[in-house]
């Protein structure tokens, strides 16, 4: 990958600190269109903080974020970042438990629905047509993630593995240009991990989504990702293909560990 295209997102020299703790200290990274990239690192390395900055949840103390060639204004609200086309899932589930699975996924399309309050109140013509249109799109995602049988179940009644999948569905429903996944496979058994890995790969390859994910399971990361960025104590220590990362002495010292050591 020598001739790289223009990155979809470029974060330059990101600094952020919480009190005295420098969570991120001059990290730069690029995400290229169409790739499946992973951010790895030990606990407390600043991976989730990075994601939070990328989708506008935290404001960096210093640094720039350029998305699709345009620099993001410093105080952009998360919902405007979402409108630019960045979606994410959360490490500790953030499903809307008071709603059904369908409702949760329909929320993902909130930015694409434009009927106003009055037409929604009347539920007439335009509003109903729009609702049905988006329902069809949502059904495609439900089909893609194989959760047809639970579409009317309240989210609060789902087991953990399915909740993660519904959250992925919600993020996919917004048809993002960049999808950020925060530990999509944490706390799952092997079978569930394989399922999610399959879905992530399919979303990347079949549907063409650009995906950046955080994951601790090195087996999965090395298998499915095109490119890996390694963070440690708020600094980027390595970047490259899985093979390069596996061989990088710095990464082995900080994170992977040596066999038998």
């Amino acid at each position: 990958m020598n001739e790289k295209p223009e990155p979809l997102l470029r974060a330059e020299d990101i600094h952020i600190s919480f009190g005295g703790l420098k969570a991120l200290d001059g990290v730069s990274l690029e995400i290229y269109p169409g790739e499946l990239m992973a951010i790895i690192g030990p606990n407390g390395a600043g991976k989730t903080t990075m994601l939070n900055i990328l989708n506008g949840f935290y404001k960096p103390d210093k640094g720039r974020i350029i998305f699709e060639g345009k620099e993001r204004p410093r105080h952009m609200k998360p919902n405007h970042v979402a409108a630019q086309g960045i979606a994410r899932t959360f490490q500790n589930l953030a499903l809307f438990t008071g709603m059904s699975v369908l409702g949760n996924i329909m929320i993902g399309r909130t930015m694409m629905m434009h009927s106003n309050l009055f037409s929604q109140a009347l539920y007439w013509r335009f509003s109903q047509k729009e609702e049905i249109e988006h329902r069809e799109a949502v059904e495609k995602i439900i089909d893609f993630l194989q959760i047809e049988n639970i579409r009317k179940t309240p989210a609060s009644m789902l087991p953990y593995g399915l909740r993660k999948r519904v959250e992925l569905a919600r993020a996919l429903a917004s048809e993002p240009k960049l999808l950020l996944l925060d530990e999509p496979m944490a706390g799952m058994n092997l079978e569930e991990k394989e399922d999610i890995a399959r879905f992530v790969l399919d979303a990347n390859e079949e549907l063409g989504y650009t995906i950046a994910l955080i994951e601790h399971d090195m087996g999965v990361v090395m298998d499915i990702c095109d490119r890996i960025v390694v963070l440690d104590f708020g600094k980027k220590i390595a970047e490259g293909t899985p093979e390069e990362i596996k061989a990088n002495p710095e990464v082995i010292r900080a994170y992977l560990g040596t066999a038998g050591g």
Partner: protein
Amino acid sequence: MFYRECGNFKDSYASDMAIFPIPLDRWGFTVMLFLAFVVIPLFASEYLITNIIIPFYCFALSAFGLNILAGYAGQISIGHAAFMAVGAYSSFILYGRYGIPLIPSILGAGVVTAAVGTFFGLPSLRIKGFYLAIATLASQFIIEWVIVHVEWISGGVFGTIQAPEMYIFGWPINTAVRKYFLALCMMVVFMTFGKNLVRGQMGRNWMAIRDIDYAAEIIGVNLYRDKLIAFAVSTFYAGIAGALLCFCYVGAANIEEFNVMTSFALMGMIIIGGLGTVLGSFFGAGFFVTLPILINHSLAAFMDVVPSDILSNIEAIIFGGLIVLFLIVEPYGMARLWHTIKDKLRLWPFPY
């Protein structure tokens, strides 16, 4: 057995997304409408209509308004009766003082209330939970004070305006049944609108804000806008309900009707009835409007034996006890109880 969901195949998303996707529910609803539009006006006594059913409709509408705010959007307001007062006074002023036709006055009162409500909803952009509750409690006292002390609104320190004669297109609304129809039609129309709102995109946005606000924001919900819309819609309903209550039941706009106890009663209605349900608003309003009267009537038998002051205390004790009982039996409200009953009826009487 008695509640059947099976054998009901949907072949379009429209039919799957209908308000009542199950035929049995549709029939039930039709029967309710028939009762409300035909049976009650024909057979109910004037006392029943004026003193129980009209306030029941008005409070159901108002409780639903509060339910939009507290049950759907998760923003607590314990000053909601004050917004009903705003609706009542502004409708009387619009209709009585400026001669705007009746229905537009009531709608206008809703709009005025929505504006006031949006203003008092502004703290919700910064605070939530208990803190917001206290901020909205302030709205109760501020509005009460303004209504009582600004003469232009209340016409004096008593804060009462008598209801003007009501006409719709020159047709006098002077009998109990006509007032009943006015309240009923407004209630049905706005309940339908509200139901459409809460099952549509706006309702989903509200529920997302209620459940996890940061996740809602990250998926693209505009928190500020949608919270304020929740306040506006909710207080619009309160305004309409307040106007109807004064036009059709009280016959005067009186600030005493809308004191802080009424606010608490509204809060009680949606908690007893069921937060975040339309049905719950009716159950809750029914509970709070009819039960005290029922208790009162059933205690009347003891009139001769027990002194009346003790009797009225017993009334309050029984009512309070029933609230506690209902909350213990079903903490999620009567609407949930209703669903449990439906679940049971699916198999009953052959549960195996």
